[in-house]
């Protein structure tokens, strides 16, 4: 048994023999700090997704508009930035965010599972579906990100694979039933992830107060719905023939 036996050293105050680690070390070594990494990277990815979803919707203005929008993305920041650099800067930031998010999720999840080694014999449903599926839903999102890049960025697995013609590539893609299934499942997973994740990030970053709690929950649900609906609109429109 490990009874608490405070020593004089435990009680000593104000005078620390060892100086405190730096801010970054304090953060990375603590559960709260790692959770902060998840929250910040999550919000970065979330902001990207809002812009990405809105951009996708340009597809409803036709092939000309959509393809012009895609080539405009490569000109952002010119002439200060070289052609296409803006996209590369975004990509580096997003890859760093995914990496930070996944590494923290992995480390924290292992720690969490170890902290509750024995399950209760009397089981009962715990927490909401969105909360319970954060880990496996996250894995689905990670796999989706890989597939999505191979499909519409590198065009490796795209059925049409015509560089510079995203409209045609997207429409060809969603004529495949398996592309639709992958996309729909991933976007449902995304909605669930954000439903829990948005309020969770607000809590982690200390933004939640007793009065503001409800507002964060509602905002998370609205964001989840809007993003899922906005992303799903494209494959559904191809499937139903609205886009061709």
């Amino acid at each position, binding site marked *: 048994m490990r009874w608490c036996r405070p020593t004089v050293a435990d009680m000593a105050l104000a005078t620390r023999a060892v100086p405190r680690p730096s801010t970054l070390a304090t953060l990375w070594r603590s559960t709260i700090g790692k959770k902060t990494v998840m929250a910040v990277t999550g919000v970065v990815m979330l902001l990207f997704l809002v812009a990405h979803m809105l951009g996708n919707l340009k597809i409803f203005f036709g092939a000309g508009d959509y393809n012009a929008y895609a080539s405009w993305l490569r000109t952002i920041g010119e002439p200060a930035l070289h052609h296409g650099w803006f996209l590369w800067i975004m990509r580096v930031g997003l890859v760093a965010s995914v990496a930070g998010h996944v590494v923290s999720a992995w480390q924290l999840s292992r*720690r969490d599972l170890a902290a509750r080694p024995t399950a209760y014999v009397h089981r009962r449903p715990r927490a909401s579906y969105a909360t319970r599926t954060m880990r496996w839903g996250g894995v689905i999102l990670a796999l989706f990100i890989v597939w999505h890049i191979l499909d519409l960025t590198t065009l490796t697995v795209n059925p049409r694979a015509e560089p510079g013609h995203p409209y045609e590539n997207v429409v060809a893609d969603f004529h495949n039933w398996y592309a639709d299934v992958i996309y729909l499942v991933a976007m449902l997973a995304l909605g669930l992830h954000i439903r829990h994740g948005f309020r969770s990030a607000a809590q982690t970053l200390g933004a939640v107060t007793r009065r503001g709690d409800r507002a964060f929950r509602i905002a998370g649900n609205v964001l989840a719905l809007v993003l899922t609906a906005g992303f799903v609109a494209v494959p559904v429109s191809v499937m139903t023939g609205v886009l061709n």
Partner: protein
Amino acid sequence: MRLTLRIWRQPGPDADGAMTTYEVDGIAPEMSFLEMLDTLNERLITEGEDPVAFDHDCREGICGACGMVINGRAHGPERTTTCQLHMRHFADGDTVDVEPWRAAAFPVVRDLVVDRSAFDRIIGAGGYVTVPTGSAPEAHATPVPKPAADTAFEHAECIGCGACVAACPNGSAMLFTSAKVVHLNVLPQGAPERESRVLDMVGQMDAEGFGGCTNTGECAVACPKGIPLPSIAAMNREFLRAARKAPR
């Protein structure tokens, strides 16, 4: 009233345990859950068996010693401590599962008794204010704003029973630690140690092997004293602020 109890029996810290079934008769609705267990234990003693070991002290819901998971819920179906849970919340003929708090940081000592001294060490790491001893200070020397006093009082209600850890799927002690940090950090008396308190208490909490927070909210539902979930956000705020300042 008659109940079928399935209780976790484990003779020692390293021994194997198992759920053991007992029939208990003659339970009055006004009995507390602990009195019901006393009834069972009297019988076990007269039959020459080992009584069921459980922690208890005040039996009036203020010490935090009692605590067991009843039908999968910390302290059972009502928002109160096990000692204040009355048998009228159960129906004649019910089967009731009774298990100890489950968390790596709360090892089972025997039956339903767990070692919660990890909480004591978290308190030891910073859950105090440093004051000079001697005569009582002048009451008006340190004015405390009313909202701060209310917040401090609400969080001081935490009795350290460990229900939050027991209820959390990650065995996390965030709600407990946040209650202690918020209680002292909101007061002017706690201000001089504001940063070191939260850094040291969170450091100790992590070192004890408690899990992290995934914001499931189970802790705040289980808390017999109603410590609210946003208190964890308040502690996160204090922690991030202190980490930024990286004090000595």
